Structure formats: structure tokens, C-alpha cells
């Protein structure tokens, strides 16, 4: 058992202003006590008022911090691209390729649309989205070639719900290898993911 190095407290000796006979304070002493009481009460009132005012300020600061945090979390999901949706990732169609820093690619994922927040043109109930280098956290996916990508999504899991800022058509925004395991689906529209945030487990 570790020992404490804090020394034990010694009892403090000090003057006691009491009437030795009755045990009550004497007249001048009573006056000093009353005066002290008034001062203490005044100080206490000031302290309470200050505390209340500080409390309001603290609440306001917390609110603005929350707002800032929410903005930081949302990032550019409300502004990037022409489309913004909340959608559930239906499945992972096979393994992602390596992202070893040597080869870069985009991977097409299938979503079920839950809500359309912004759009230019019709958005179907099923969405195919090309995500760049999907093994990477979205916060770290931007690079020299695609510097506007981001989000707070850390990994792709089937069933999870994402809030996505998208562009379309994908090949006017991305030029590189594309893994499309849905390539046999003719005439499907593939969107390009710019910002990808996690909304929660949709399971």
C-alpha cells in the first residue's frame, strides 16, 4: 500500500473572545461581531450576484462552444456539392483495396436515402456513391489531388447512417481508378462524395 507524504494536520491554537464568566460575548465584542456579520452578509450578497452573472456568461459561452463544435462536426456537409442527403449504407460489396499510400482509388457504395436536404434534380431512393480511398478516415482523406474532401466518418459499416454532401456526375469531379462492384447495373447514377459525416448506427 503506498504511503501518503502529506503530513497530519496539527490543531491550530488561536485567541478566543468570550466572556470567561458567562460564556457570552461582552458588549464591545458583540458590536464587533454584529459589524463583522454585516460585512460578511454584504460580501456574500456581492458574491452571489457575481456568481449569478457569471453563471449566465458561462451558459452563454457553453452555448457558443456547442455551436462551434456542431459547426466543426458538420464541417462542409451543409455547403459542399449540390446534393445533401441522409442515407443508410446498405452493404459493403466486398473488401476495400489497400490504401498503402501508393495506389489511390474510389469505391462505389450503395445507400438507401432517408432524407434529402438539398438537391438540384431528383434524387432516387437508392443512391450509388463513390468514396475516395475508403480505408481512410474522412478527416484525413483529402490530399494534393482532392483537397476539398472531408467529414467526421471514421469507417464504413453496413447499416450505418451517413449525412453526405455530394456532386454528380462523379466523373466530372474525379478522374482515377474506380472500383464499381455494381457495374452490371445499367444506367445507374453514381454520385461523388465530398463530405461524409456519421449520423449514427442505423441498425
Amino acid at each position, binding site marked *: 500500500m503506498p504511503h501518503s507524504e502529506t503530513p497530519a494536520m496539527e490543531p491550530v491554537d488561536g485567541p478566543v473572545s468570550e466572556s470567561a464568566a458567562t460564556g457570552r460575548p461582552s458588549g464591545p465584542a458583540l458590536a464587533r461581531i454584529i459589524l463583522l456579520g454585516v460585512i460578511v452578509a454584504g460580501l456574500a450578497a456581492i458574491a452571489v450576484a457575481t456568481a449569478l452573472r457569471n453563471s449566465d456568461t458561462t451558459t452563454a459561452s457553453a452555448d457558443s462552444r456547442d455551436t462551434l463544435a456542431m459547426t466543426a462536426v458538420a464541417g462542409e456537409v451543409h455547403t459542399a456539392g449540390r446534393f445533401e442527403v441522409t442515407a443508410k449504407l446498405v452493404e459493403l460489396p466486398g473488401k476495400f483495396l489497400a490504401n498503402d499510400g501508393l495506389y*489511390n482509388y474510389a469505391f462505389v457504395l450503395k445507400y438507401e436515402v432517408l432524407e434529402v436536404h438539398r438537391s438540384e434534380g431528383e434524387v432516387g431512393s437508392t443512391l450509388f456513391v463513390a468514396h475516395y480511398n475508403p480505408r481512410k478516415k474522412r478527416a484525413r482523406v483529402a490530399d494534393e*489531388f482532392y483537397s476539398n474532401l472531408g467529414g467526421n466518418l471514421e469507417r464504413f459499416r453496413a447499416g450505418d447512417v451517413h449525412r453526405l454532401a455530394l456532386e454528380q456526375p462523379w466523373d466530372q*469531379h474525379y*478522374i482515377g481508378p474506380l*472500383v464499381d462492384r455494381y*457495374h452490371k447495373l445499367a444506367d445507374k447514377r453514381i454520385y461523388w462524395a465530398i463530405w461524409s459525416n456519421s449520423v449514427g448506427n442505423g441498425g
Partner: protein
Amino acid sequence: MPRSSRMLVLALALWGLSQAPPATAADAKAVESLRKEVAGRGFLVASIKQKRGDWDLVLMRPDGSGQRKLTDTPDWSEAAPRWSPEGRRMLYRRIKAGTVISHDRWGFQGELVIADALARNGRVLGKHTWGCWSPDGKQISTLSLKGIEVIDLATSKVTRRLSRAGYFQQLFWSPDGKWFCGTANVGGELWTIVRMDVVTGKWNVVSRFRNCTPDWAPDSKQVIFSNRPSNQQGYGWTQLWIAPGEGSKRRMIYGEDNRHIYGGALSPDGRYVVFTRCPKDGGGSERAGAPGGLMRLADAPIIGGNSPSLRKLHPRAHEGPVLKLPDLWEPHWTYTDVTAKR
């Protein structure tokens, strides 16, 4: 060392020697013969990494002799040089020093520069991603999100625009002007070599599955490219291959276990091929280049090093000769005497 250990080391050494291709005087003589054969056949230009960190263009004879810096710019890297078809001018990319040059996306980096054949009097043309000479040297083709564009060099105007189909990098115009080749997404499969008719835009697959860095043979009928076949254990090794443009049977030119072969470029008469032998995938542009090699196309297929796995797959492959060149990246070859005064 105990006697038993010494015996074991000796046995392993003997076994190793038995596995290695015989390095005989005859081999050395064959390499020397090749060296003499190519030494006077024009010039190579390539990017060579400098100790200070940037890349400069270096001119050399095809045997690696007579090296001479064409650029000496600490603030810039000069990359991927290509002489014009008549050998009087050069295109290369100028990339800010300190930028890691991507082995497969370098055409998107920096700016395209046009200069004389010795990289003098350079003029920045602009971003012009994947800029490549037209056969007459009066235009360039580019590949970008906008598609394939043909730009007139005299006016800098876009004279033609085609859909890029699935092309995403490494677009090159054939010497006869009829075709493009490049790396593309096709039918859900990435890293496919595709040939496209310049007039009609119709395309066909040249080679599927894990290919890149295609380039034209001088006859415009064949395409040379790097390929990492699936018939290998684990990650595998990238080899140099060639295939007819219409996409019939492809054949290996050079391969080597423990080396990734990139940067394949044919001599102007199509008789020789230069390439790089990189111990790590990527061709070396992310690091300091890779040892160059030169061989006769008529000697293909050649397998370098021990390469027991590859020799099983290609039992009729030869062992050389292969002439060693310095560490470099993206070599190009001309038979024009670019040093002649004009």
C-alpha cells in the same frame, strides 16, 4: 563459428549459386556487345534525383555514358521528358521541388513546359495534364476531367474535345496519329489498358487487370505496358509486357522476381527497350528512381536475377543480355542528334 555451422553456410552458398543464372564471361561479353551496339544510337533523356532533393533532366547515351545535366534547378523538379517526333523540341513537367512525384499521377502534377531538345528556353504552357505530342508536333493531347482535348500549340486553342470514356491517366497519342492508349476503368475493372480511335472515339481493351504506364511502339500497332499478373503468390511483381493494339495475345518482355518493372520505352526503331527495375512498387518516383535496364526486343522474354517463381511460369525465357543503366525515372529515347548545333 562451429564446424557444423560453417558447413551449413557453405551448403547454402553452393545451393544459392546453383540457383543463380550463370554469370559467365560469355554473359559479360554479350552485355558488352549490346553496349557497343547501342552506345551510338542517339540519346536517352530521363529524370534523375539529385542529392539536394529535386529531380533534374539528364541526357546520356543509350549505354548510360556521357551523362550531362540538361536542367539544374534546385527549386523545381523536371519530370517525364519527351522529345517531339522530329527530335527538335521537348515536353516535360515542371513540379515544385519538395513535391513527392506520384509514380502514376505525375501527369496531374505541376505544369507542362515546352523547350528545345536540350530543355533550353523552356516556356510554361499551363497545367495541361498528361500533355503529349501529336504526330506532327504541332498539337498536344491532354487528359482531364473535361475529357480528352487536342490543343494547337501555335494558338493555344482547343481544337477538339472527346469524351474521355474510362481513361483516367497516362494518355499517349500513337505515332501514326490514329490512336490513343491509356489506363482506364472498364466494366467495373480498373487499371485496364485501352486503345481509342482518335476520329471515332471507339475503343477496345488491350490488356485487362493490373496494368499501367502504356506507351506506343513506333509502328503504332503494339502497346508496351507494365502488368502485375495474378498468377503470382502474394502481392506479386510487376513485369513489362507488349500486346497488339487490337488486344489479342500479349507477351512478356522482361520480368524479375523482387523487382517491379516500369517506365518501358522503345527505341525509335522499336529494336530496343529501356525500363526501370524498382525493388519497391511504384517505379521509384516517390523515392530516388530505380536502376535502369536496356535490352533487345528480339531477345524477349528475358527474366532477370534468380527469379525461380517467374522461371517456372516462363520456362522458355532467356537470361539476357541486359545492359545496366543508372538510377533514373521515365526515360525517353531519340535517334536525333540533339546535341548538333542548328
